[in-house]
């Protein structure tokens, strides 16, 4: 009986990982993301470290754009890698590893935003029974220059607008707009056709236009 295609791919990757390791135990950089992810599936922690090194900047950037807060972004980025490690068995080689990882990051960031919002509501509700005001409400990192204040305001508006999108629309928008992934890579990741990705993207942009239609006018006034 012949091997399944996936088993063959795994076998080839394992051989390649071994070949690279024979030359230099620590050097796994020449491997592609998919090869590293498959090696990680096989329990190779060196592959995981290389994936973290390779993508931590992009994962952090996505988390930062979605939360606008440095500490949250660091926390989300770390948690995303932890989830990637723990859920690597669920990753399928036909989709790109980066797109999968960024989707985990996006979901993690949205969960964090929701939790923060819930905490805010809880605390504001508690305020009605107390005298303290909202001094404990979580606020974003302090900003000091006028330029930073303006960038912060735009960021807050965009983040608020992103919460209006559906999960799929948000994932498609984040992967295309911020990460510059190909539509075909996004299609592989979310398991649909390129045509559907275009439609999701269109709907996402329409919703954002509704929320942020005046943004370019305000920007040009400044």
């Amino acid at each position, binding site marked *: 009986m012949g091997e399944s295609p996936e088993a063959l791919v795994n076998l080839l990757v394992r051989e390649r990982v071994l070949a690279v390791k024979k030359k230099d*135990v620590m050097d796994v950089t020449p491997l592609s993301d998919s090869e590293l992810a498959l090696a*990680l599936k096989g329990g190779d*922690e060196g592959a995981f*470290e290389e994936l*973290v*090194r390779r993508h*931590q900047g992009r994962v*952090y*950037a*996505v988390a*930062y*754009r979605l939360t606008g807060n*440095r*500490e*949250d972004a*660091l926390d989300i*980025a*770390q*948690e995303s*890698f*932890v989830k990637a*490690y*723990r859920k*690597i*068995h669920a990753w399928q080689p036909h989709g790109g590893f980066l797109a999968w990882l960024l989707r985990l990051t996006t979901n993690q960031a949205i969960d964090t935003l929701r939790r923060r919002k819930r905490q805010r509501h*809880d*605390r504001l509700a*508690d*305020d009605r029974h*107390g*005298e*303290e*005001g*909202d*001094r*404990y409400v*979580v606020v974003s990192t302090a900003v000091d220059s006028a330029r930073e204040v303006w*960038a912060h305001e*735009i*960021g807050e508006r*965009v983040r608020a607008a992103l919460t209006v999108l559906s999960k799929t629309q948000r994932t498609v928008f984040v992967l295309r*707009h*911020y990460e510059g992934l*190909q*539509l075909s890579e996004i299609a592989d990741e979310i398991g649909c056709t390129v*045509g559907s990705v*275009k*439609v999701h*993207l*269109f709907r*996402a*942009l*329409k919703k*954002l*236009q509704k929320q*942020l*239609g005046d*943004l*370019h006018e305000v*920007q040009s006034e400044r």
Partner: protein
Amino acid sequence: MRCRKVRGLIAASVYGDLTREEQAAFEGHLASCPACRNEAAALSRVTAAIPVEAPPLDRDLLPATWRRLRESQAEPIRIPWRLAAPAGAFAVFLVLVSYVAINRSEFKGVHPRNAAVAREDEISPVQCALDEAQKLRQHHDYTTAYRTLKQAIEEYPDDAAAAEAQRLRADIAFSLLKWYPEAYEDYDLLADRYPAVFASSAESIHRRDLLAEAREKDYASLHALDAARRSTDNKFAQLENVIGRYPGTFVASSAAEDMARVIAGEDMEKGGVSERLDAMVHARDKCRNTIAKRQLDLEAGHIYHREMNDPAKARECYGQVIASDNSVLARLGRQSLAEIDARE
């Protein structure tokens, strides 16, 4: 082409993702349809107005990520989904129940109601934050613990518990989150604003010195030490390499202690100074890297001199260090010898 069919093309065109054929068909449609033309222009304006830049990451996330993984005792799960599903559903149920319970009882944060209760009981609000942070730490939610302390200290810097909260905040940043830039600032703030608490904590003093030194090279030495500590494959050799790269530094000194610990195992923690010295000497004898050997001589000399009051043995060790080819270590050896001379 009908307008409805052009929608996807409009989105793709905004990002320049159309094929040549799609582009031609799209342009043909736009030429005869002002509505779609306006739509395309409006969506282009929206995307142009949404900035894509984000601040660069200023650290390596690996150490903190490994720590989280270790704490959650995570391993890649390879159970077939069909078998895992019932167990997973039950686990989700348990998590939900715990989550609701925790939210109702423990994780209310340091909010006004708690603060009000705190006042009634004459417990300071920062003390309240400290208690919350300890609970959060037990549940491995270090980021929220850090944030809780930060907010409370900023709000009540003169509170009686603020110094202790600042020390805990720095400790969480350093040892749990591995956020070294924040940890440096936190220990610095502790020293500046709460000098008595800082001075009474040898660990805080050591960590600030270590961070101040590592900061000059963007904390690379600390990250290298973390990587060596995580190593499951020949940790001893990895620690030797760290000393080889950063001889004479606080990080090298910590790596030397770790090498001795690798030799002696758990016994070193239980034993006294002489066990520690034995382990250090054994580690030195096992070393292959000559720079690491001399670093361990330096550490052994410090133990003889500062902890065992044996200047003769300390001189022997420092003599080896002074003869080293490494100028940093040789200088430290001479300084240490001068300390003995001054005392005598």
